[in-house]
């Protein structure tokens, strides 16, 4: 697949850098890190030094400039050539944790919370989902009550990517009344009394990315950690979701690209009934269908990313792109496993892992059903 039309030489050059990094630093360890259930922390300063961590963030906050299209280009190279989806999503948790701080934070907050993450010294996470429910964000229950110069936070968060090691957690809390008008964003730092990390959750896929439960019990956080205005957090969360969903759609395209490549390789190598698998029309057509669906999801994702970088509001289109991409990756990974036969069910084959990784996408970042709810609302059905 040639690079997307709107990508420039800059994207091509950036892709080269990310590819070289992935081959050197990720690929040799991919299987081991996935099996170990976590990637080593020292990957982060390496990502920062290579200029990869800061892609998509303004230079003024310690980033490297560029926009969402650069973020997706880099992430695709890391997935396709690093072959560890867990490592890429785990080391990319700042992609959802930092934008609300960058958009709404004060210079002091940016210095304290954003720069060290951009430098690979600290880990950040976004905590919205609660054990009692993730889809209905407007009903979240974690409370933050103002007490002098502090907020006192009580509540639980779950399924938090990079949660076990996060130094900086952007937390959605209820500071006001019921519904979306009572939600704020506040940063809680590791070591704050009353903030504890529960167990590392055992998952179906995304193994190299740690996922945790977070607990806040009478946790006193300086009021200076509040991001933006009190009770104005819901909008920040919604804006963040649009970019997150496009990043997730980009992940799906990348995973499918890798699964498709692995399937082609295997189909050419493996013989049955005296010829290679790719010698059977049925197998070739499977590959052709995979490639076609991948191309379609890629095109839609890129179109929406392009609109987003041009400043359009893309909540509905981003939801469409996510659903198209998650359906696509589900099918492509399933077929990639099928082409691998029994080996596709074995842990040492990358497609087995991709199949498990792919299952997250119709759930995380807003479920497939919630995407359709958003589309219905925006399209006025």
């Amino acid at each position: 697949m040639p690079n997307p039309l709107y990508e420039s030489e800059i994207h091509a050059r950036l892709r080269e850098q990310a590819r070289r990094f992935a081959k050197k630093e990720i690929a040799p360890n991919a299987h081991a890190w996935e099996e170990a259930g976590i990637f080593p922390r020292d990957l982060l300063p390496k990502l920062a030094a290579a200029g990869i961590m800061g892609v998509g963030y303004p230079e003024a906050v310690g980033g490297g400039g560029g926009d969402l299209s650069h973020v997706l280009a880099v992430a695709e190279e890391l997935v396709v050539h690093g072959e560890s989806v867990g490592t890429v999503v785990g080391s990319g948790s700042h992609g959802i944790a930092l934008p609300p701080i960058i958009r709404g934070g004060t210079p002091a907050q940016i210095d304290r919370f954003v720069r060290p993450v951009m430098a690979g010294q600290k880990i950040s996470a976004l905590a919205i989902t609660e054990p009692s429910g993730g889809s209905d964000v407007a009903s979240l229950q974690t409370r933050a009550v103002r007490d002098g110069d502090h907020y006192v936070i009580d509540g639980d968060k779950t399924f938090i990517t990079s949660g076990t090691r996060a130094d900086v957690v952007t937390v959605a809390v209820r500071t006001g009344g019921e519904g979306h008008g009572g939600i704020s964003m506040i940063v809680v730092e590791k070591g704050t009394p009353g903030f504890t990390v529960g167990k590392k959750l055992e998952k179906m896929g995304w193994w190299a990315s740690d996922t945790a439960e977070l607990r806040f019990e009478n946790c006193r956080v300086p009021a200076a950690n509040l991001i933006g205005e009190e009770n104005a957090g819901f909008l920040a969360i919604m804006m963040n979701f649009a970019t997150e969903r496009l990043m997730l759609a980009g992940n799906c395209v990348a995973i499918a690209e890798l699964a498709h490549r692995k399937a082609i390789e295997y189909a050419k190598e493996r013989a049955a009934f005296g010829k290679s698998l790719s010698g059977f029309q049925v197998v070739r057509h499977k590959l052709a269908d995979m490639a076609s669906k991948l191309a379609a999801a890629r095109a839609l994702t890129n179109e929406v990313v392009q609109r987003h970088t041009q400043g359009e509001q893309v909540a509905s289109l981003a939801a469409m792109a996510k659903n198209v991409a998650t359906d696509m990756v589900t099918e492509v990974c399933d077929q990639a496993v099928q082409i691998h036969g029994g080996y596709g069910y074995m842990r040492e084959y990358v497609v087995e892992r991709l199949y498990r990784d792919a299952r997250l996408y119709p759930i995380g970042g807003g479920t497939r059903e919630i995407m359709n709810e958003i589309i219905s609302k925006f399209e006025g059905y």
Partner: protein
Amino acid sequence: MKILVPFKRVADPENANKVKVPVGANGLGPKIETTGMEFKPNPFDEYAVEAALRLTENGTAPKARLGEVTVVTVGGPEADQTLRGALATGADKAVRVEATDEQLDGAIIARALAKVVAQVGPDLVLLGKQTVDTDSAQTGPMLAELLGWPQVTFAVQITNEGNGSLLVTRNGDGGVQKVRVKLPAVVTVEDRVSYSGGVTSPPTPATHKYADGVRFAPLPAIMQAKKKPLEVKKLADLGVDTALSVKYLGFEPPPARKAGVKVKTVAELVDKLKNEAKAI
């Protein structure tokens, strides 16, 4: 220090299986088909750029340039992207000598480079020890001969002694050799020169540890590279003798590998090595 690094765009050796040679008369193809192939910088040239950058900076504050690195290529406009890549990595200037592959052989390239050396005036020419497409390893030595400069090939470690000389460790046939060379000089490098301890050069403190390998270009550097000077010169304008001394008569792919055999006993293996492969 001023350094010139010849920098070549080559077909990605990882895609060598995509190389196609159309069959022509008497079984020889007229050319190598390059459509569909991916191109990248010659890796040895990238190591040379990395070494050149280390020789012209303080590794603890690499943004401040303390010398000048110019990359030069002889080729068509498609090579501009390759040069921009080197500029993004950190080279300061680029020169492209306009030419098509059919107009070139190793000797013409060396002559063109000698002219560029005269114009740029470097203290050192650092080259990859060879390119991964033709693997001839001639350009460095031919250039040194034309310039009348001392040369060291296959460098694995370079120390800038600071008094107009370099101490170069090179890979020789029988082991490593340490050579002191007076500048200006021509040095060709192996990959190890880009390893952590590949280059020692004040003012970079001896305690500074470089990461192994060629540095990565962050996005701001990639963007800035578009603004760095890239000068295009015509081969003819350089006053280079363009008579080819090597003519390509035809191409054929190397014979396909034969299938291996399984041996049952060590004795059989030894017998085959001795009598069939004549390896022992």
